């Protein structure tokens, strides 16, 4: 399924060898297959909690610990999770005559429920009940997806590239007016950054939150508040403003479920970000990301991957090929999980040290290479961060060249850089100035790409081809030694993450042969997402 047809590989401006392109895609598939196998044969506490969230279980106890955590922990204590949480839960639900999952969870939290794996008959009933609950859950998600299409039809689809802006006050009620202001000034996508601690929490906080460090907690309520505020401003502007949040972390599948339920439009969801930058256990991450992506696929959500981050810890020239390799892996995993091309917001970044000679040409080579390797993907291009200093004038300039590279190479989503990146989380005025910056570049040079024609054998072409062959070489190594070993060796972001290290490994459970996940029948199988949404991918 994954091997690309060489005939469809792009010739493009770089004259990439189609055989080489299909070779790297092939290698990525081979490197990824064992990981998919791992994910197929294991589950995690977060996957199981996500099943309950998809079935509509919300809320938390007085200390803020969600009912889904109580329920999954109880089941695990009682009978283990290797058969999944669904059978024991829906069996207990029926058996205890509970009005709903929340009541059951409250009793479970109080230690009043003993879960067990039902026998064949009761299992059939439990299975049916669970499946019915999930059907309702997915129907709700499908409704939200349809609602998105309707909103877009009612407002309009902004032209590419989409302007992506971050809000990060820590307080959802400060975030909202800032997000609306940014939308009015031209932002097409608003991302609400999470509080620094959240991705290490093994539960999803509840309710509207006003306390976060350098970001706001991802909660269902915050999602809903922001989406409603952006719907208002979308109608006001006659342009659909998308909402993004972050799935990666210990609760990736659950947050994916909440995002589907609250009509988020994009989610940060990387197959390796949590491993490398949050020290989350690799196995946990790979299992979680697969289920999370299946949910995104169903919900019509575009994922954003995090390759840009590698270039903050590794050198952007030396490690350029690691970005490409990771994108190929992310693509493989994403397609395997049912995501369509138009949902693959693969990430890359403009992070070369501006002191390096020809840095802009190198950036163009890298960006154009990615563009041509993934012609139908809504690529997300990230601005300079590492080499942004306190010189805000120099920073404003570098951001402009980033914007220009984005425009010249036809990137789909431009995350807008802040001149104060090296100093603080953005001020209102930083964001306003950043938007003026990108608006100028789009207006003045939006059509420059027609004049961008790297000559055969020139600097740009040679650099792009070099990165591509380095990618092939690295992928060959990874196929040989295994992806988990490569990660342990510090291949990505020069950070070593052993397969058994990091947080959350205790939340990984091998599936029993009778493992049952009532969501899976809605999520697996071909073509889940294709054609459901009006959004079309493609080169900007």
């Amino acid at each position, binding site marked *: 399924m994954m091997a690309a047809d060489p005939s469809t590989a792009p010739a493009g401006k770089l004259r990439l060898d189609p055989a080489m392109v299909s070779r790297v895609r092939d290698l990525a598939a081979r490197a990824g297959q064992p990981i998919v196998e791992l994910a197929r044969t294991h589950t995690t506490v977060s996957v199981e909690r996500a099943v309950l969230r998809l079935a509509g279980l919300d809320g938390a106890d007085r200390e803020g610990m969600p009912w889904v955590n109580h329920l999954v922990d109880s089941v695990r204590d009682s009978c283990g999770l290797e058969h999944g949480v669904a059978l024991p839960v829906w069996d207990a639900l029926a058996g205890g005559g509970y009005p709903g999952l929340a009541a059951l969870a409250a009793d479970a939290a109080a230690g009043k429920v003993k879960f067990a794996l039902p026998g064949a008959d009761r299992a059939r009933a439990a299975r049916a009940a669970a499946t019915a609950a999930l059907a309702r859950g997915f129907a709700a998600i499908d409704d939200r997806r349809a609602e998105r299409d309707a909103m877009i039809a009612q407002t309009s689809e902004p032209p590419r590239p989409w302007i992506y802006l971050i809000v990060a*006050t820590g*307080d959802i009620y*400060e975030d909202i007016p*800032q997000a609306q202001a940014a939308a009015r000034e031209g932002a097409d996508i608003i991302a609400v950054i999470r509080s620094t601690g959240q991705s290490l929490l093994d539960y999803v906080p509840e309710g509207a939150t006003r306390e976060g460090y350098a970001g706001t907690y991802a909660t269902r309520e915050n999602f809903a508040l922001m989406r409603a505020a952006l719907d208002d401003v979308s109608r006001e502007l006659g342009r659909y403003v998308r909402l993004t949040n972050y799935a990666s972390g210990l609760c990736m599948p659950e947050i994916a479920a909440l995002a589907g339920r609250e009509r988020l439009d994009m989610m940060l969801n990387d197959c390796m970000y949590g491993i490398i930058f949050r020290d989350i256990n690799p196995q946990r991450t790979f299992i979680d990301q697969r289920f999370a992506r299946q949910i995104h696929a169903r919900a019509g959500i575009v994922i954003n991957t995090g390759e840009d981050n590698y270039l903050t810890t590794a050198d952007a020239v030396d490690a350029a090929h690691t970005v490409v390799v990771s994108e190929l892996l992310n693509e493989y995993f994403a397609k395997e999980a049912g995501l369509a091309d138009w949902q693959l917001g693969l990430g890359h970044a403009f992070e070369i040290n501006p002191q390096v000679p020809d840095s802009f040409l190198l950036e163009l080579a890298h960006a154009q290479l990615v563009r041509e390797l993934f012609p139908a993907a809504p690529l997300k291009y990230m601005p300079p961060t590492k080499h942004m*200093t*306190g*010189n*805000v004038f120099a920073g404003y300039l570098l951001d402009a060249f980033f914007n220009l590279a984005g425009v010249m190479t036809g990137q789909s989503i431009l995350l807008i850089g802040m001149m*104060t990146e*090296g*100093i*603080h*989380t*953005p*001020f*209102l*005025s930083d964001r306003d100035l950043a938007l003026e910056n990108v608006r100028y570049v789009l207006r003045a040079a939006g059509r420059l790409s027609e004049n961008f024609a790297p000559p055969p054998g020139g600097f740009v072409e040679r650099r792009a081809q070099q990165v591509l062959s380095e990618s092939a070489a690295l992928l060959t190594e990874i196929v040989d030694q295994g992806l988990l070993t490569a990660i342990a060796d510090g291949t990505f972001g020069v950070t070593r993450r052993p397969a058994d290290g990091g947080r959350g490994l205790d939340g990984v459970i091998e599936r029993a042969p009778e493992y049952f996940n009532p969501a899976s029948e809605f999520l697996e199988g071909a073509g889940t997402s294709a054609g459901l949404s009006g959004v079309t991918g493609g080169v900007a």
Partner: protein
Amino acid sequence: MNGTAIGAGTGAAQPAIIRPYGDTTGDGRVQVSFTLPVPFGNEEERALAEGAALQLAAKMGLEPALVVHAKGMGARFTFFVVYGTARHLVDLSQVVITRREYPLLSGPEINMAIRSSLGRKLVVVGACIGTDAHTVGIDAILNVKGHAGEKGLEYYREMRVVNLGAQVEVPDLVARALAEHADAVLVSQVVTQRDAHLAGARGLARGFASAGARRPLLVVGGPRFDPTMAGELGVDRIFGRGTTPGEVASYLVHALTGGAGAAAGAGEPAGTTTLTVGGGAA
């Protein structure tokens, strides 16, 4: 635009005491950049330089303040970028704004006011004086083409405009203004280095001092003038950045016809606010 008082004009929700806003209400965040004549070479010098920058920031009321960028320029200078928290409060009720003392009139109102009160054309003589050759600003006010979508004074049927262009010496201007029986003399001054514009305006006033009763109305304009300084410079009115021809025409009618336009009942009432630092948007 309306004629209400400041408090009401700013809406009920606007508190009177405010602080700069970075990303949270009341955080007071301000960005500053400047050069100090101190070297930025070795560790000792750098420490002293950054300390000096912080001292200045503290004196400016920024506390805490952080030097986020320091760069030596040659052997004797250092450039700094500082972010800090301003300890000052801004009291909106104490903001000094000069009020526009005349109503804004439409073209027909202006023509009618001139006709009914002067009974002849209003004569305007314009120039850039001294060595200033920046005519674009005065042309924007005088030429038919105008500025910001408004036609210039030449367009008004009841005005006669004599635009002398650039680099006119004050004595020549005085002679010509008297010869033309000018009601108003409009002068532009754009170069401000070493306060050239202030010297120019004072020279203009001195030049016309001997004209006595025949002294026309003296109006000066340019992007870096402070409109509150008219009295100090000895001229009648100063216009700043972003002035539009309509504002100038309305002012001339007000000053030379005793506000006949306002008496005509139409137009906007007097007493609205004019900007302290210019007439329009940035």
